């Protein structure tokens, strides 16, 4: 976070001695803020003040890395509270929870379900990235260690939920090369847990019975030199967990409280108390505000489809359009004789248009042009969606070789392209679609009736 001259001035000696070369301490502070001169140019700036200054110029929120090799992922590192200010950098990660209190059949069923959700959406792989392995003291250490081994076999990043430092040490030992998270430091065990986590070089999750105890425990761990931490939003109530997640993020980003500047973990599975639909609502809520990891009881397609879509939307760069892969998309059982419809590769256009076309039930080949990921009118205005570029794309993709139909529907907003396209694509009948996607269902039905 950039410091204002005023913040530096407050720490300055205010002597106006001119020894630094500036006429006043105020002018000096301004130059330091601009980066034009180092604070060391002042002979009277106290060490304590310099330390405060260094602290204040550090990033507001730590970036924490978990997982190893191709599983490595970054959490945190955010600099803003709202996506319109600047891009969010680390997307929310989802974990499914297992517990050593479960019987073998239940564990096997859950482990079998986890890999089922695995698909691609606009170039991003959507799958369960983490597994939360919870320790139940009553079921014993051995069962827990077995469970950790079993879960590790799935090749996802593990979060070891365990507040018994001795058990945690053995569990971490089993999988430390995969860089798991150890979640379970609290006010009474943090020293021992810290030794386990730092010994194995893994991230430590911190819990507290309320926000104050949580804050104090984080501060205590920082004092021990550990800044490789995660904040557990707790399981008291939905309201408390939301308050913790939001207040910690706000204090870190807005008020510069470094003790709050860590990624968070939200155990929605505990908060939902067995209500699967409520859990889905919580997953969405904490993706919005401000969960770095959200732990769920289960994550099937029903929960995943909207959730991963939401996440993909929220964590896009506001400056960079989302693109889909250009090419031929046969819809509603289309074959080479089906009519062609074309539009641009802007993801939102693609989703809206393809959704309406699917609802029409008419078999067709949707041809997505390479238009730089811009919307129809924007790409047309930029010369990226013209008769020339469409004809070129048709040649490159060998559309005429792959499709026998010679009917092409173009977006209503670029109706002006009709004449030119007929000239550039001889033999094709160019048909103009309506201006709005919602009118496509009726239009396609009428067209092929």
């Amino acid at each position, binding site marked *: 976070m950039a410091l204002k001259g005023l913040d530096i001035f407050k720490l300055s000696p205010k002597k106006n001695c001119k020894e630094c070369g500036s006429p006043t301490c105020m002018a000096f502070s301004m130059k330091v803020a601009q980066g034009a001169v180092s604070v060391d140019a002042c002979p009277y700036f106290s060490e304590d003040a310099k330390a405060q200054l260094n602290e204040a110029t550090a990033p507001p929120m730590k970036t924490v890395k978990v997982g190893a090799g191709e599983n490595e992922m970054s959490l945190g590192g955010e600099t803003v509270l*709202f*996506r*319109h200010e600047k891009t969010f950098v680390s997307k929310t990660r989802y974990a499914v929870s297992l517990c050593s209190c479960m019987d073998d059949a239940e564990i096997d069923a859950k482990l079998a379900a986890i890999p*089922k959700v695995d698909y691609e*959406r606009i170039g991003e792989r959507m799958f369960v990235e983490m597994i939360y392995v919870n320790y139940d003291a009553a079921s014993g250490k051995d069962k827990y260690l077995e469970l950790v081994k079993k879960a590790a076999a799935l090749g996802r990043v593990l979060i070891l939920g365990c507040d018994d430092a001795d058990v945690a040490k053995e569990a971490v030992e089993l999988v430390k090369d995969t860089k798991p998270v150890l979640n379970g430091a609290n006010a009474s065990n943090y020293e021992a847990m810290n030794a386990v986590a730092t010994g194995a070089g893994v991230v430590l999750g911190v819990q507290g019975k309320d*926000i*104050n105890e*949580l*804050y*104090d425990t984080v*501060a205590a761990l920082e004092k021990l030199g550990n800044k490789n931490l995660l904040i557990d939003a707790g399981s008291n*109530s*939905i*309201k408390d967990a*939301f*308050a913790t997640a*939001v*207040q910690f993020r*706000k*204090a870190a980003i*807005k*008020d510069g409280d470094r003790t*709050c500047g860590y990624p968070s973990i939200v155990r929605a599975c505990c908060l939902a108390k067995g*209500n699967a*639909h*409520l859990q*889905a*609502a*919580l*997953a*969405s*809520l904490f*993706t*919005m*505000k401000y969960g770095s990891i959200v732990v769920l009881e289960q994550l*099937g*397609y*029903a*929960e995943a*489809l*909207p*959730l*991963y*879509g*939401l996440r*993909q*939307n*929220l964590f*896009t760069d*506001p400056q960079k359009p989302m693109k889909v892969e250009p090419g031929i998309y046969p819809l509603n059982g289309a074959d080479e004789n089906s009519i062609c419809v074309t539009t641009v590769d802007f*993801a*939102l256009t693609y*989703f*809206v248009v393809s*959704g309406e076309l*699917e*609802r029409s039930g008419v078999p067709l080949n949707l041809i997505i042009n390479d238009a730089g990921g811009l919307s129809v009118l924007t790409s047309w205005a930029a010369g990226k969606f013209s008769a020339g570029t469409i004809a070129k794309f048709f040649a490159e993709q060998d559309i005429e070789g792959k499709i026998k139909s010679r009917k092409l529907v173009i977006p209503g907003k670029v109706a002006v392209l009709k004449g030119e396209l007929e000239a550039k694509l001889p033999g094709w009948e160019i048909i103009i679609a309506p201006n709005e996607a*919602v*009118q496509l269902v*009726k239009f396609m039905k009428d067209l092929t009736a």
Partner: protein
Amino acid sequence: MPFTAKSGKFNAKINAVTIGTGDKAITIGGENVLPFYTFDEAIENAPKVGIEITDGGMEAEPECIQKCYEGCTSVVDMAKKAVTFDGVDFLSIRLEGGDPNGKNKSTEELIQLVNDVAAAVDVPLFVCGCKNVEKDAELLDKAAAALAGKNAVILAAKEENYKTIGASAGLAYKQVVGAESAVDINLAKQLNVLLTQLGVSGQSVVMNVGTASAGYGFEYVVSTMDRVKAAALSQSDATLQMPIVTPVASEVWNVKEAAASEADMPEWGNQEERGVDMEIETAAAVLAAGSNAVILRHPESVKTISTLVKELV
């Protein structure tokens, strides 16, 4: 040293708008904090949850919703049943059959239905048009007249028809006017200014600033709502302090994830679960972004979102 948070409460607040009459009337807005930030200041009026039916009745509903209305033979039956579901704060009737490019039902027929529904229930009412701006000008003018004295929400006045609908719903019949803009924050503000200049009280305007299903350009919805709340609260912009109402149902049940049958997408599993989760997750997200009321369709979604709101406020 305990955690000390700086309070995030603002000097400005969202307008508190009352909808409906009598014991069942609801009030939305009134908060001076960001959505659900009760740690900054208590939120007096929790966001409200409505259930939507359409003039199309049973046959317009997906199968999984039809079964919740088992035994109903008319739209009025459905309305009576809808208001009995857990968590329902208000009823929304969407007159989509009025669309000239669709069923093109007559205004008289639809207004008769509005009258019948209004007579059958005592919860606050929202009336949504068919989205065709010319037809809506006529339809919503008549709906506002038919519901005189009910303090209903008329959705929606748009840039093209705000004069007719604002004059009718806002001035002549004293309903609450819904101002609709599609993820265009400057237009959202402009519509509010225009309605106020027409003479409609800012205290009887709610906004629909646009919506989308999770995954379908939803980032625009989030940023629009974030910026509306920032202008309203941190810049004290009185022209954006109207509560936000978001119709979620009419978006989510059309997207592939909710609409595709299990036969078409076997790996996706049960269609009802997909539809309900799409509705729930989209609703939770628009509430987190700042909606003061959401309109949903599946009773299970209504119940879940109502529970979520109660947990948070």
